[in-house]
């Protein structure tokens, strides 16, 4: 945590001139309300100061790492049709974005298209579905401390995914979206918006990757050459009775400053499961908000993090129970190596009338080195009495007996760490219903242990 007075520019590279250039590059078909929203967002971005040491929602974060200088809004540039090496893990992407622009797409199966499933770009949806966009795009309150960065996202967003599943439609296979960034100093603003209508069922996978470093595993000790800035967001809306599974795999290059804002609205009897896998970036902040708005709503929030080198993962979550008989279950697991640092700050809020709430929040930190640091801030704010709310946080090494056993079988420390990490993670991975998805995530996590 920095104690020096901040002298950094609050807007950095994202100057009024850069914003004017961005606006001028918007297609002529872009509706006025959209441009107005961007202008308003830019204004609030510029007006809100950078977080300071006394900001409770940034407690324990390394504020010195939050620099907005030296970036340029990424453009299509040299065409780089979706990096196949990584996307193959989850299957063919329905949409692949590279540096804020659509690079490639795969047509939907005909039967789904016939049922009215829409998987398109935000820029197309601006004209085809303006009302849905207006109602859902960045529509939820920013309550976790990043109002400034969320505004920056809205101001500079280039394109993103728009997914609409009509009433009663079940999509059998996961819809995969990839977002890649390439080039030194590139700033990207990935976005995925999902609307699951009544009784719809769908699984979405967001895969974030740096195209110019995906093929070789990053060496944390190498000189950082291609700093990037990734500021992503997603809006998930689960209508009455729907079931939405959302998996995000973040594997930006090791010199990326990353933000990801997750906003979930769960309506009556709907069920949302989200799993965020954090592997990449130099410093990554993830904010996840779940609003349980009607009886029977259920939100399951899962996250897995492998933190190594000098990486910092800063995770902030908020579960708001706004109606009676709602349920939320959060489990965030971090494995820490080297001098890595993780911060978990979670809050369960039970509104005054949300009786019969069942909320759970758990943060488990597996300490695998003597220099790693784990901070936990599990919080509760309960204003109804007939509830079951519990939270737990543990930080510890693995059972020494298990370690001893592995050693006695001749397993090297690095391999033992990997085995123990997978054993530790399995509880979360096993909650995924889809086996191929489980295996793909497993594979992806493995890449982090390859030397």
């Amino acid at each position, binding site marked *: 945590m920095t104690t020096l007075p901040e002298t950094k520019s609050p807007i950095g590279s994202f100057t009024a001139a850069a914003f004017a250039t961005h606006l001028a590059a918007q297609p002529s078909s872009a509706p006025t309300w959209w441009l107005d929203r961007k202008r308003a967002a830019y204004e609030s971005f510029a007006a809100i100061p950078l977080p300071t040491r*006394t*900001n*409770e*929602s940034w*407690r*324990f974060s390394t504020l010195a790492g939050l620099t907005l200088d030296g970036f340029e809004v990424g453009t299509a540039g040299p065409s780089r049709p979706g990096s196949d090496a990584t996307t193959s893990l989850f299957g063919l992407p329905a949409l692949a974005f590279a540096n804020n622009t659509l690079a490639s797409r795969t047509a939907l199966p005909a039967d789904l298209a016939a049922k009215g499933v829409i998987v398109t770009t935000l820029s197309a949806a601006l004209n085809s579905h303006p009302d849905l966009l207006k109602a859902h795009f960045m529509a939820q309150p920013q*309550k976790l401390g990043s109002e400034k960065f969320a505004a920056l996202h809205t101001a500079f967003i280039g394109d993103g995914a728009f997914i609409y599943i009509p009433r009663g439609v079940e999509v059998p296979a996961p819809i995969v979206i990839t977002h890649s960034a390439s080039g030194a100093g590139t700033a990207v603003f990935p976005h995925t918006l999902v609307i699951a209508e009544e009784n719809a069922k769908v699984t979405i996978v967001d895969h974030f990757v740096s195209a110019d470093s995906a093929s070789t595993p990053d060496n944390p000790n190498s000189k950082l050459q291609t700093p990037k800035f990734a500021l992503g967001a997603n809006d998930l809306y689960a209508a009455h009775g729907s079931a939405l599974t959302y998996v995000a795999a973040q594997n930006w290059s090791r010199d990326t400053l990353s933000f990801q804002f997750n906003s979930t609205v769960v309506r009556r009897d709907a069920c949302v499961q989200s799993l965020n896998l954090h592997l990449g970036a130099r410093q990554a902040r993830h904010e996840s908000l779940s609003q349980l708005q009607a009886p029977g709503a259920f939100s399951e929030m899962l996250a897995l993090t492998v933190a190594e080198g000098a990486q910092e993962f800063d995770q*902030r979550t*908020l579960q708001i129970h706004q109606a009676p008989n709602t349920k939320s279950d959060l489990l965030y697991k971090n494995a820490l190596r080297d001098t890595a640092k993780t911060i978990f*700050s*979670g*809050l369960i*809020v039970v*509104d*005054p009338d949300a*009786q019969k709430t069942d909320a759970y929040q758990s943060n488990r*930190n597996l*300490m*695998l*080195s*003597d*220099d*790693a*640091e*784990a*901070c*936990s*801030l*599990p*919080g*509760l*704010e*309960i*204003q*109804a*009495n*007939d*509830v*079951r*709310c*519990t*939270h*737990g*946080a*543990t*930080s*510890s*090494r693995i059972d020494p007996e298990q370690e001893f056993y592995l050693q006695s079988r001749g397993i090297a420390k690095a391999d033992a760490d990997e085995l123990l990490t997978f054993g530790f993670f399995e509880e979360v991975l096993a909650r995924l219903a889809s086996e191929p998805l489980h295996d793909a995530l497993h594979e992806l996590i493995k890449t982090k242990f390859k030397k």
Partner: protein
Amino acid sequence: MANSATDTLPPAADPATDNPVVGIDQTKGDFSYKVDYEFDAGTGLSEKTVRYISSVKKEAPWILEFRLNALKKFLSMPMPTHWATKDLENIHFDKIRYYLSQGQKPKRTWDEVPDDIKKTFERLGIPEQERKFLAGVEAQFDSEAAYSNIKDLVAKQGVIFANSTEALREHPEIFRKFFGKVIPTGDNKFSALNSAVFSGGSFIYVPKGVKVAQPLQAYFRINAENFGQFERTLIIADEGSEVVYMEGCTAPKFSTSTLHSAVVELVALKGAKIQYITVQNWANNVFNLVTKRGVAHEEAEIKWIDCNIGSRLTMKYPGVVLKGRKARGEVLSIALANDGQHQDTGAKMIHAADETTSNIIAKSISVGQGRSTYRGIVHIPRHLKGCKNNTECDALLINSNSRTDTYPAITVRGDKNATQHEASVSKVNEEMIFYMQSRGLTEGQAMSLAVNGFINDLARQFPMEYSVELKRLIDLEMEGSVG
């Protein structure tokens, strides 16, 4: 995420913060006695006030300097409202009296205590015969100790038990070394305030190897309107010694809010044990903003037992700095928040040596519109081995509009330590209440029994008279909470 206490909630949901005493019966338990004060520093705080207090106490120049330095710090520090409740803004520092004294010398025997003060003690429920069992009583009647009775036995063991003025004057060689060291003046705004205007409180020194058989006790009481009480306590337990200290606090209700801001420092040297027990029952218009911290050296043990029943707003997080190998820290905390009350309590455990262990058990009960908050810090820095922390927070919500919050912060570095934290929120089991009612108890009695059951495993660890008093207080608070 502690900021969300105020930031993330719609304003309408929190009327209690704006004016917590609205609609509260202000007369219940109301009593006070006319007191003639010989010394009165007047209202408001300035350098003049501080100089006045110091001169009345005939203090050494270094203490005056200490006070003036603290005053500067207090005036320059902001209110901690970026994380704490906005209710703090309702404290009017310029309307508070910072020092009142009758100018008496501390009394040595019960017979010398003036009758009207004895009368106050009777109302507080200290039966006259009980004093025979008390090792010593240091009762702070407004600023000064009105009565102190150190049993010969304790004095013979070499134990020094005096008020802050006396101790700093007569034993500076012992107390100066530790005074203001555990809690530095600038630790927080309120510790700075206390350092500027402190008076009264107990300074205790227990020599090497001495085990004080009976608990030492003190009662604090605010008797004047708009009076802020700033007692200062410093307990030093030398190597291998043991001592138990108990404090109780009460105040009659006044129409305007008053402030209590104490600083308590404990030093447990090698192998020493200190147990500090508080039953806080201030009137519910008292701001109770207290800083309590202990340093535990090698193999020493510090245990805070903290019960908060009264006050309008309590902010108190007893802490232990585990400085020596195998030191142990413990906080057992019970908080009961009724209408108009906010009990913002918790614990801090700072591990600074190998193999140190700490344990925090906090239980809170919210009744009516009461709000209880647990706030805690557990810190284990890098390159330590074998440190362990266990934290458990349980909250019981009695009525549908009761509120509870939990904001722990746990930092662990390295892979040779272990922490675990658990919190739960629940309500009283309906079947249990129904069963008790079917056996002829009223709903209120059943509820009271259930609440006492909830805290029983903690209350059992208290000295007997305190657990009895606690039970009585809970019965009183639960009256009329249901139905």
